[in-house]
């Protein structure tokens, strides 16, 4: 698996105890983008996630111990960067993201030249496939992020994300470890990188249950708000504004 080819694409699937879903996810990806390597980053699963992913045709990067979502995704980004990939698209291993949307994200990355493309549940009318609690949280973060990012973002918590090589380099060096989606947006904004959103479909989880409880939701909000605040304060790392041509 190498990314020496121009426009090379890697599909990244972080997974933790997704034995029942990950095989189907990998097969769906291989149908949607034949030829694109699929890397499942296993966060020390205790079930047969690794075997299921390999049986479905994915490469697997097993973590030596549990790192959490951010650490797991960053490991995948680091490997992709080292192997020379131009684009990486990340989707969840639980089957919630529809692999048929990968070509749209990939095409947007290549056509627009933007650094990040978010697969958004809310870019089209099919945006109600989420719990009311999560919908309230997403609305809250939209309001918070609007002035920080300088443009509206409709689905800031989406884990369906494509990045180009420049963003890959940034994320290889610095990536939020817990609840990374929103903070990652702010990290890119500090570099004056550009993101786009494209509509994507969401399905209910194929197996297992979400680990988010009401108490964890409150922790999530506080944690992410703090992360956004801290990243906004990192003025020294902020890239200068591009000069206007006279």
């Amino acid at each position, binding site marked *: *698996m190498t990314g020496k080819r121009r426009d090379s694409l890697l599909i990244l699937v972080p997974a933790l105890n997704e034995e029942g879903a990950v095989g189907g996810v990998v097969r769906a990806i291989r149908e949607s983008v034949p030829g694109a390597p699929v890397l499942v980053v296993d966060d020390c699963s205790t079930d047969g996630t690794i075997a299921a992913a390999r049986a479905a045709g994915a490469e697997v*990067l097993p973590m030596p111990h549990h790192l959490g979502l951010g650490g797991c995704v960053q490991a995948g980004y680091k490997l992709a960067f080292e192997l020379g990939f131009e684009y990486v698209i990340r989707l969840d291993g639980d089957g919630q993201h529809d692999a048929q949307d990968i070509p749209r994200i990939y095409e947007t990355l290549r056509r627009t030249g933007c650094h990040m493309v978010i697969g958004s549940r809310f870019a089209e009318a099919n945006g109600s496939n989420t719990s009311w609690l999560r919908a309230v949280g997403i609305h809250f973060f939209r309001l918070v992020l609007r002035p920080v990012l300088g443009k509206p973002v409709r689905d800031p918590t989406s884990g369906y994300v494509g990045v180009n090589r420049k963003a890959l380099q940034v994320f290889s060096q610095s990536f939020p470890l817990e609840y990374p989606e929103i903070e990652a947006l702010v990290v890119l904004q500090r570099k004056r990188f550009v993101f786009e959103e494209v509509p994507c479909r969401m399905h209910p989880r194929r197996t297992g249950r979400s680990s988010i409880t009401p108490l964890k939701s409150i922790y999530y909000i506080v944690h992410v708000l703090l992360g956004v605040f801290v990243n906004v304060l990192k003025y020294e790392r902020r890239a200068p504004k591009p000069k206007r041509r006279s």
Partner: protein
Amino acid sequence: MDRLMDIMTGLSVLLIVLVLASVRRAHIRVEYSVSWLLGAAALLVLSRAPVLLNYVAGRMGITYPPVALLLIAGFVFVIIFYRFSVIISKLKDDNIALAQRVAILEYHLRSRKGSIAG
């Protein structure tokens, strides 16, 4: 007041003995025991030297010296906790970077073995 001072002395001595025993058994590294020992020693000295404690309390504008001692103890331990939070955060970052590097190296090794095996 004397009783409270005695309790503080006892707690300080207990803390010093506990930390020294932990260092001896290699449960705490020497460099991380210094903060605890210095903090406990300061509390021991203040609880056994009423003149010094009265002076410090006076400088702090506190009329009841044991309150000054408790305030100082609280502040010392907050500083120690802060210092350890910084150390733990750095250790966690290093640990994650190391785990990622190990995983990536193992991946390269497996790929190499696979290509050699044909």
